[in-house]
C-alpha cells in the first residue's frame, strides 16, 4: 500500500462507526491486537552508527524488512537494539524513506551498491521519487550497457560456433564478423584491396599519359592501356560479383538482404560493367555508356562495410533528415526570391549575364555561400544593392541553421530518450498501482475463502498476516455486512452474470411469467434497466394488490408511470418489502408474494414467510432467500 496508509487506517476504522446503525447484518468481531499500542523509540545500530526512530515510522511500510517482523532476526538482546552489519551511509537514505515517504538516490554512491542495499531492506527501486528517478535510471542504464558491452566483447572475441550450424550459417557469420576465422579475415582484406584498386583504376584512367608514338595529342591512360585497365576492371568485377553472390546465398533472409543498403550499393557497383558488356558498340548509346561508368565510383561506398565511422556518419545524416530538409527548403526560398529580384534588376542592361531567372540561380547560390566566382556580376545600382543584400543574408541563412540543427539534434535525441523513459516508468508505476490494488482486493478475498473454509476464523488464518492486514480486512468485512453484499472477483462476477441470464431464460418457460416475461424482456447479463423499471412500477403501485392474480398485476403495471415522483408521500405509500434478489425469476416470485401482509418490522435476515402462493417457483426460491450470501440457485 502507499505511504502513510497505515497511519490513516485507524481513522478509517473509527469512521466505520457511521455504518453501524445502517448495517443489515451483524458486524464481525475485530481482530485481536495483542501488541502494545503505545509508541516507542527503537534503536537501530548499523555498523556502529546508532539511529533512533519511532516504531510507528518503521511500521509505515509493512512489506519491507524494517517494517515487518523480519527485523526481529536482527535484534540483539544484550544491547536492546537492532544490529545490521551494512553500510551506515546508505542506511541514512533508507531511513529517510521511512520518515518522509520518498526515496532519494545519493548521486555520489555507486548504483550497484545502492541497488544491493535496497534489495536487502526489501525496498523496490520503483518508488524512488521523481527528483532522483531520472538520475537513477540513467546511471543504471549506463552501468548495464557497460556490462553488456564487456560481456559481448568477451563473447565476440572467442565465441565458439553453435554446434550444429550449417555451412550456410557459418558462411554468413564469416561475412558479418570477419574476425571469427582466418579465411574470413583474408577474404575481408582481399575485397578491401580490390575495392581500393578499382577506385584508383577509375581515377587513373582519366589522367593524361604520354601519347603513343606517332600521335600528338595527349591521351588519357585509360585509352592508352585499354587492355590492361579492362583486365583489371574485369578482375575486380568478378571478385565483387562472387562476393555478392556468396552473401546472397548465405543470407538468412534473402529478400531482406536484397533490400538492404549495402546490397544495393553492391549491385550498382557491378551493374555498369555487365551492361557495358552486353551493349553494342555504337555511337548512339556510347553517351549512355559513359554515364554508366560514373556509377563505378559507387564502389567507394563499399568501404562502409569496412569502416565503422562511415556507417555512423550515414546514420547521423539519416536522423537529421528533417532539419536538413528544412534548411534546404529555406535556402530554396531565398534563392528563388533573390534570383527573381536580380533578374529584374539586371534586365535592362545590355550584355547582361542574367539571361533568365534560372540563370540567376547560379549567381544567387554562389553569392549566398560567399563563394563569389565572379562569372556573373551585377552592373546596375539596383542590382548591386540587391546583390549585397543577397550576400549578407546568405551568411545568415546558411550559418544560422547549422548550429541550431546540431543542438536541435542533440536536444531532440535526449528528449526522445527521456520521453520513452518517462512513458516506460509511468507504465510500470501504473501497473504497480494496479497490482497493489488487486493485491489488497485479492488478499481480502483470500481471507474470506479461508474463513469460509474453516468455520472458526481465529487461529487458522492468522498465518502470515500483519496486524495492519487484519484490521483492513475487518474494515472491508464490516462494509460487506453493512450492505449485505460480498466482495468478489471478476471471474465469479462474470460467471454470476452468465448464470443469471441462463436462469432467466429457463424461468421464462414457467407458466406464470409469460406475459410479464414478455414485458420485462431483458437481455443477458444484469438487466438492471428492466429491474429498475419493475421496481419503480411496484413502488408506485398502491398496496391494493392483495389479489394474487397475475392479470391484474399486469394491468397495474400498464397503468403506472415509469418515473416515480420522489415525494415523501408516494415513497411512504409503498409498504412492501421487496426482497428482489438477482434475476428476473425472483421478480416473478416477488409479485406472487405480494398478497402476504407486509411485515411491520423487517428484520435483517429475511425469513421466507411461507405465503400461500401458487406456483412451483416459490420452493426453489426459498433456498435463495434464506441464504443472504447467495450462491445463485440455478434453475
Amino acid at each position, binding site marked *: 500500500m502507499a505511504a502513510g496508509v497505515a497511519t490513516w487506517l485507524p481513522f478509517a476504522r473509527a469512521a466505520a462507526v457511521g455504518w453501524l446503525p445502517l448495517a443489515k447484518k*451483524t458486524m464481525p468481531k475485530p481482530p485481536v491486537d495483542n501488541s502494545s499500542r503505545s509508541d516507542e523509540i527503537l534503536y537501530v545500530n548499523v555498523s556502529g552508527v546508532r539511529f533512533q526512530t519511532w516504531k510507528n515510522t518503521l511500521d509505515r511500510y509493512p512489506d519491507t524488512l524494517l517494517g515487518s517482523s523480519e527485523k526481529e532476526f536482527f535484534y540483539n538482546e544484550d544491547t536492546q537494539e537492532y544490529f545490521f552489519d551494512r553500510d551506515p551511509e546508505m542506511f541514512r537514505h533508507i531511513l529517510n524513506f521511512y520518515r518522509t515517504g520518498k526515496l532519494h538516490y545519493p548521486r555520489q554512491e555507486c548504483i550497484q551498491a545502492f541497488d544491493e542495499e535496497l534489495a536487502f531492506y526489501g525496498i523496490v527501486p520503483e518508488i524512488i521519487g521523481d527528483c532522483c528517478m531520472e538520475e537513477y535510471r540513467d546511471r543504471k542504464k549506463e552501468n548495464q550497457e557497460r556490462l553488456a558491452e564487456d560481456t559481448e566483447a568477451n563473447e565476440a572475441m572467442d565465441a565458439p560456433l553453435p554446434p550444429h550450424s550449417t555451412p550456410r550459417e557459418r558462411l554468413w557469420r564469416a561475412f558479418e564478423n570477419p574476425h571469427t576465422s582466418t579465411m574470413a579475415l583474408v577474404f575481408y582484406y582481399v575485397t578491401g584491396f580490390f575495392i581500393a584498386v578499382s577506385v584508383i583504376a577509375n581515377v587513373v584512367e582519366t589522367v593524361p599519359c604520354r601519347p603513343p608514338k606517332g600521335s600528338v595529342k595527349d591521351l588519357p591512360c585509360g585509352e592508352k592501356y585499354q587492355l590492361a585497365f579492362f583486365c583489371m576492371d574485369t578482375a575486380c568485377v568478378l571478385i565483387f560479383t562472387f562476393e555478392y553472390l556468396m552473401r546472397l546465398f548465405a543470407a538468412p533472409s534473402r529478400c531482406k538482404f536484397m533490400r538492404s543498403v549495402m546490397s544495393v550499393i553492391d549491385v550498382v557497383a557491378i551493374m555498369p560493367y555487365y551492361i557495358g558488356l552486353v551493349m553494342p558498340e555504337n555511337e548512339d548509346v556510347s553517351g549512355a555508356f559513359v554515364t554508366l561508368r560514373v556509377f563505378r565510383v559507387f564502389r567507394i561506398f563499399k568501404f562502409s562495410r569496412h569502416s565503422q565511422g562511415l556507417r555512423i556518419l550515414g546514420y547521423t545524416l539519416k536522423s537529421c533528415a528533417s532539419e536538413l530538409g528544412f534548411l534546404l527548403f529555406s535556402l530554396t526560398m531565398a534563392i528563388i526570391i533573390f534570383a527573381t529580384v536580380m533578374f529584374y534588376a539586371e534586365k535592362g542592361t545590355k550584355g547582361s549575364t542574367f539571361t533568365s531567372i534560372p540563370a540567376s540561380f547560379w549567381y544567387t547560390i554562389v553569392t549566398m555561400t560567399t563563394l563569389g566566382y565572379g562569372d556573373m556580376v551585377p552592373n546596375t545600382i539596383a542590382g548591386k544593392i540587391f546583390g549585397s543584400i543577397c550576400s549578407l543574408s546568405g551568411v545568415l541563412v546558411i550559418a544560422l541553421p547549422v548550429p541550431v540543427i546540431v543542438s536541435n539534434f542533440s536536444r531532440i535525441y535526449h528528449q526522445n530518450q527521456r520521453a520513452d523513459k518517462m512513458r516506460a516508468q509511468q507504465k510500470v508505476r501504473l501497473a504497480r498501482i494496479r497490482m497493489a490494488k488487486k493485491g489488497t482486493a485479492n488478499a481480502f478475498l483470500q481471507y474470506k475463502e479461508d474463513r469460509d473454509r474453516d468455520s472458526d476464523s481465529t487461529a487458522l488464518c492468522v498465518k502470515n498476516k500483519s496486524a495492519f492486514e487484519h484490521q483492513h480486512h475487518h474494515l472491508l468485512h464490516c462494509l460487506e455486512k453493512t450492505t449485505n453484499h460480498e*466482495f468478489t472477483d471478476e471471474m465469479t462476477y462474470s460467471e454470476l452474470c452468465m448464470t443469471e441470464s441462463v436462469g432467466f431464460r429457463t424461468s421464462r418457460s414457467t407458466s406464470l411469467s409469460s406475459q410479464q416475461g414478455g414485458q420485462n424482456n431483458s437481455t443477458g447479463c444484469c438487466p438492471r434497466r428492466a429491474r429498475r423499471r419493475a421496481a419503480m412500477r411496484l413502488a408506485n403501485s398502491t398496496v391494493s394488490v392483495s389479489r394474487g392474480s397475475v392479470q391484474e398485476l399486469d394491468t397495474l403495471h400498464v397503468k403506472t408511470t415509469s418515473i416515480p415522483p420522489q415525494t415523501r408521500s408516494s415513497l411512504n405509500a409503498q409498504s412492501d418489502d421487496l426482497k428482489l434478489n438477482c434475476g428476473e425469476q425472483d421478480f416473478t416470485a416477488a409479485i406472487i408474494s405480494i398478497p402476504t401482509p407486509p411485515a411491520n418490522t423487517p428484520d435483517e435476515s429475511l425469513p421466507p414467510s411461507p405465503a400461500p402462493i401458487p406456483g412451483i417457483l416459490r420452493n426453489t426460491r426459498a433456498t435463495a432467500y434464506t441464504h443472504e450470501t447467495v450462491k445463485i440457485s440455478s434453475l
Partner: protein
Amino acid sequence: GKDPNPIGQTEGSKWQKPRLSRKSLMKCCLVKWIIASTTQQGPGKDSSDSDLELSMVRHQPEGLEQLQAQTQFTRKELQSLYRGFKNECPSGLVDEETFKTIYSQFFPQGDATTYAHFLFNAFDMDRNGSIRFEDFVLGLSVLLRGSVTEKLRWAFNLYDINKDGYITKEEMLAIMTSIYDMMGRCTLPSVRDDSPFEHVEKFFQKMDRNRDGVVTIDEFIETCQKDESIMASMQLFENVI
C-alpha cells in the same frame, strides 16, 4: 485604439481583413519583444512577485493540555496521533481532495469519493473546507472513546447532510448510494440500482416512528438504543488506537 470592427468586412464575408490597428500591432509578439528589450526594467518587481507562490499556510494546533481536556485521549496517544498527522500533512490541514485520496486507498474495488465527501463534512465541523488536527482528534475521540449516545449523535450528524436536524429520505439515499458505491462492481450478489433505495426504505421503516418522512435525532437515538445488535456493535472499534 481604433474600433474593433473591421471596415473592410462585407455582409456575410467570412474572412475579416486584419486590421493594422495599434492594438493589434501591440499584440504582435515581435513588437512586444522589441519594445521590451529596449525599455529599461522598472524598479518595481511587481511581475516577479506574482510569480512567487505564496508559501503554504501552516496551521498550529491548540496546546496539548487543551486537547487533553477536550478529548478522551491520553497525552501519549495525542502525541502519537499528532506525529502521524503532521507527517502526512506537514501544513497541518487536510483538504478534501487529499482526504478523498486517502480514504479511497482502503477501498480499491469501489469508488469511495462520495462517501469520503460526506465523511469530510462530518469531520470538518466549522465547515471551512479543511480538517485541522483539532477536528480530527475531536472526531476520533467521539468515535473511539465516546459514550454510545455521543457516537449515535455523530452518526446522525453524518447522515444529516445539510445539518438541519432531520434526516430526509433523499439524504439517506445519497449516503446509502455512496456506501454501495464503495462496494464496486464485483459483488456477490451484484449491487442492483435499487439496492440503496430499498435499504433506505428499511431504515426509514425502522427509524421513522411517527411516519412523517424524516428521522429526527431523538427517534434515531431511541430506535438504536432499542436495537440490541446495534448496541452490541458500538463497542467494536474501541481498541483501534
